[in-house]
């Protein structure tokens, strides 16, 4: 691994090279090495039979200065990837699940407008987990906050506890419209999963961030906040960022710049 370090210190690293470095390291880790030598496994190349570890903490940086007014691509990409019906197309918009939503804020004094997406902030100390009576709401070792639908009873305490209104309850039968990779169903609470199915596949990115990059805005950056060489860690070091409701001391996995 040490010979890879100088490469990753050259900034800015292109996505292609990052992928190559990840693949190369993963391949190296899979090979037999000299006895006694332990290679550190890179997050992106985690074998499918290995449990997630707290060596990784997935996070997202939202650059509100780049988030475009009127653009909804992150929301559309999320609903396509995860199979939830967009609110505008729902028969019951007030009950429709929302994993991510676009907010348009205006300063009443200066009229300055700010655009940003709001979703589960993947707290290190999640209130939704604290209040869950069945243990269905939980935080995975790599920092992703999820709902285990096998144990969720749909009581919605977590929806009440969440300061970000990030969670939704599925009110109606989905009639087998779910994605094969994203089980979701009636009577269970759900929210942004940081595209856990993609993360586990080794994509190392979320659908919303991919869509934002594809649209040319580059307002969303997903990555491992525990890896000092990752793009997100580098940007977090450089940019002034805020946590929404930082006063709650929840140590959020989503950080905002320009709010």
């Amino acid at each position: 691994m040490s010979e890879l370090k100088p490469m990753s210190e050259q900034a800015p690293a292109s996505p292609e090279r990052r992928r190559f470095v990840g693949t190369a390291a993963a391949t190296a880790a899979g090979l037999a090495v000299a006895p006694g030598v332990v290679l550190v496994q890179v997050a992106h190349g985690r074998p499918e039979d290995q449990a997630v570890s707290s060596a990784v903490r997935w996070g997202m940086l939202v650059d509100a200065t780049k988030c475009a007014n009127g653009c909804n691509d992150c929301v559309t990409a999320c609903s396509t990837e995860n199979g939830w019906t967009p609110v505008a197309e729902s028969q019951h918009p007030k009950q429709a699940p929302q994993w991510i939503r676009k907010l348009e804020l205006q300063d009443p004094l200066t009229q300055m407008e700010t655009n940003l997406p709001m979703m589960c902030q993947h707290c290190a100390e999640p209130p939704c987990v604290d209040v869950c009576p069945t243990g269905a709401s939980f935080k995975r070792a790599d920092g992703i906050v999820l709902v285990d639908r096998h144990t969720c009873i749909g009581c919605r305490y977590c929806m009440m506890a969440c300061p970000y209104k990030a969670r939704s309850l599925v009110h109606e039968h989905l009639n087998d419209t779910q994605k094969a990779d994203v089980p979701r169903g009636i009577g269970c609470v759900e929210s942004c999963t940081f595209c856990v199915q993609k993360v586990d596949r080794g994509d190392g990115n979320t659908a919303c961030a991919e869509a934002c990059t594809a649209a040319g805005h580059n307002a969303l950056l997903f990555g491992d906040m525990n890896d000092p060489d990752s793009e997100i860690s580098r940007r977090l070091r450089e940019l002034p960022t805020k946590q929404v409701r930082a006063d709650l001391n929840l140590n959020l996995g989503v950080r905002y710049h320009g709010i």
Partner: protein
Amino acid sequence: MKRLLALGVVVLTTAALAWAGSETQPKAGGAPKPVIEKAVKGEQCVEDTDYMRRNHMKVLDGHRDKTVHEGIRTKKYSLKECINCHASETTGSVAASKDDFCVSCHSYASVKIDCFDCHSTKPQGSAAMHPLNAETAHYKHKLAAQAASKISAEEMAGLAP
């Protein structure tokens, strides 16, 4: 008169027996046997058939907790892989019609199955095989985009050679 009546009884009994023995009717001893469709791909399940018939719920139960909580997504004992193999060729699903793999046995055994309240009953990428209902009409453009992708539905389901 008595003789005629006895004859009538004999004729009726014979007819009833013949009717019961015919192919279209259930055999004596209960409900129609479940139809067990052979898996579309693969010759052998991850365990012996006898073991799977008795214990599939236990292995699925153990695997789901590892997947959800620890992110372990091995294929053995994964419900997704069950569906990939056992989805019916006609309906493309394991639980859409009464003869599909999961439903067939579960209705015979009268055991409620709630996996598919949340899990899709179809292999990934096979949505193109199914006519859209009103509930999913808004996915039309997304499915069209899927169909235009380089990977075919068969490849995604792992059916292609």
